[in-house]
């Protein structure tokens, strides 16, 4: 059942962003990317996104809103541990993995492939 809800929730998030991108054509991919990330972060500030993740698994984790939610989650965990300094140390606490993997794999991809379209 988790697969089904992952499909539905992930699909709905993507469909919503697709709709926004077609409806407001002046928005660049940068706007959409940052918009969805920040939305995920804010929603998880109220602890709501983690509940969506429990419900839909990868369907909620894979869209970039899941990345935003992980930023907030990391910050909150670090704040519990350190106090206000956690606001700074926690930002990349959980998402550092994703960022480092992104840099590593794109470097490897750039080395082994030629530019093409």
């Amino acid at each position, binding site marked *: 059942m988790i697969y089904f809800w992952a499909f539905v929730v992930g699909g709905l998030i993507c469909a919503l962003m*697709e709709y926004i991108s*077609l409806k407001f*054509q*002046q928005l660049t*991919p940068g706007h959409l990317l940052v918009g969805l990330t920040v939305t995920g972060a804010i929603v998880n500030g109220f602890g709501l996104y983690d509940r969506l993740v429990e419900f839909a698994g990868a369907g909620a984790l894979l869209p970039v809103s899941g990345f935003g939610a992980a930023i907030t989650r990391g910050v909150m965990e670090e704040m519990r541990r350190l106090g206000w300094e956690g606001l700074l140390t926690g930002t990349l606490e959980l998402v550092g993995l994703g960022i480092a993997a992104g840099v590593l794999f794109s470097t490897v991809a750039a080395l082994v492939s030629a*530019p*093409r*379209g």
Partner: protein
Amino acid sequence: MTAKRVGQFTVQFSQPPRIVGAFTLMGPREGQGPLGKYFDAIVDDYMWGEYQPEKAERKFLEHAARRALERAGVSENDVDYFIAGDLMNQIVSSTFSARSLGIPHIGVFAACATSTLGLSLAAMLVDGGFARRVLVATASHYQTAERQYRYPIELNIQRKPTNQWTATGGAAAVVAAEGEGPRISHVTVGRVMDWGVKDANHMGAAMAPAAMDTLLRHFQDTNTTPADFDLILTGDLAQHGSKLFRELVKREGHTLGGKHMDAGASLYSPEQQPGAGASGAVCSASVLLAYVLKEMAKGRYRRVLALATGCLHNALTTQQGDSCPGVCHALVLENG
């Protein structure tokens, strides 16, 4: 001195120069399109053996220019000027091609209106007695234009329905006082028009007012109507821009009907999913120098008004929230 001018904007040549040789060299997608059979050569590889598409674009321009010289039966030494322009920053495809050609170079920028601006300047130089022959060339490339104006293709950004697909290829022509080929009888250099279209993904809408303005100015100056032409070629307004253009022209009291053809709307078939249609400096250039010239040689068209349109924004002006100015340059081609 004013004998060659009619009206406020138009030049009427006393001894109309001729297009004595032309060559269009297009990419794979263009070759598969509805006008594919008109092009002189197709290169099946977007990269044409180069590592970067910018280098391929240069190659398209240079090869088209050299083959146009062959078609005209002349060598570099017989040509007095090489007028070229393209879409790259600092028109590097043109200037880098000019290195090896060794012909005095005049660089022009009019975005996708480069074809008619180049041919117009060439005709003026020839009819003015400043040159015997002038080589005109332009090129564009899908991948280089995407990288410079929008996003690198590898980023996989979704295209909008109003997006146009930059044509890949090079096109060149030799304009001369003597020889065989259609004559350039009139030239109307256009004004830059800006109706405040801020969406750089909607270039057709940004260029339609310029096309309308130049068309009306030309009609006014030469006292002509659509009935005086067999074909009115605009380009590259594509689907949405063409619709707007016809509506704007209709509002001014002219009906173009079946005589209007848009280069951007003709280069690809809908099955090729080009969005609104084609664009790029080579789009109007290739339709004019391949399709129109060949149909004129067959006698299907005798008098053609070509209105190439260009959108004059760059990536920075778009990011800074500026609107997109458009421009359109017109010329009349005549048989005989």
